[in-house]
């Protein structure tokens, strides 16, 4: 009987396994590959990523750029400019769950790019941005 329960538990655990966690590097690689298919010799640039993060736009009056909510320094906590909610640091610093689910990352790019940039972001912009965030780790 005991072994039956054990087998059942093992079987169930296989089914309820969450989607395997991804690493920020894997997500960066995927965006880089996509961008390279669109632009020959594309290489992610932390400088372009930083510019993307801080560039002022005119789509949303209260949220002119990413930094409006996420703060100028992505390794420290941000503050939502409308709700004042404290936002976890964007940079995937140790212990952070940032950029460990490609689905979640894509969802937030879609939502926030639409709101702040006024359009979907390109794979190159996403790769640059993630490259920038990874370059800030340990800074």
């Amino acid at each position, binding site marked *: 009987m005991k072994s039956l329960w054990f087998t059942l538990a093992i079987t169930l655990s296989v089914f309820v396994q969450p989607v395997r966690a991804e690493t920020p590097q894997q997500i960066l690689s995927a965006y880089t590959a996509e961008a390279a298919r669109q632009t020959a010799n594309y290489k992610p640039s932390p400088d372009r990523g930083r510019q993307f993060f801080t560039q002022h736009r005119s789509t949303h009056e*209260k949220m002119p750029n990413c930094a409006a909510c996420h703060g100028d320094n992505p390794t420290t906590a941000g503050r*939502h400019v*409308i*709700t*004042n*909610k404290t936002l976890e640091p964007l940079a995937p610093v140790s212990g952070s769950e940032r950029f460990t689910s490609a689905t979640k990352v894509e969802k*937030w790019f879609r*939502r926030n790019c*639409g*709101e702040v940039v006024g359009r979907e972001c390109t794979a190159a912009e996403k790769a640059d941005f993630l490259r920038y965030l990874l370059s800030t780790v340990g800074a």
Partner: protein
Amino acid sequence: MRTSNYLILAAVVLATSACTNWSERITLPANPDPVWRAECSGCHTLYPPKLLTQSDWKALMARLDKHFGVNASVDDKARETITLALLQDAAPDSSSGNHSDTLRITDTPWHRNRHAGTSIPVWRKNGADKPSNCNACHKNQDEQLW
């Protein structure tokens, strides 16, 4: 008993029941739906569903593209899941203290009553800046008791 006495009695009963309702501890559902938690608390406090009526939540969920100045749209599946989670624990439509024409919880009679005497400067002093940032003052680690 004279009519006026009945009136006084009715007023006392009404006032007592209103006070009981308004001093009730507000809790989140025991097992918050993970989609609801992830989608809504990404930007703001996870507001207990019982703070608005069922009709209010339905109206709010129908216009996520114009969500208090933000486009908070989610996909259809997530919208249905979140709406269901909210309606399960929402205040009934008969609970007028939890209704708000603006769909803002801070505009409900319940919220106004509970925070009567709390001036905006107090909210500002606590770093909330606005009354909708509950956790600036209500610091409960498990977010269960307000």
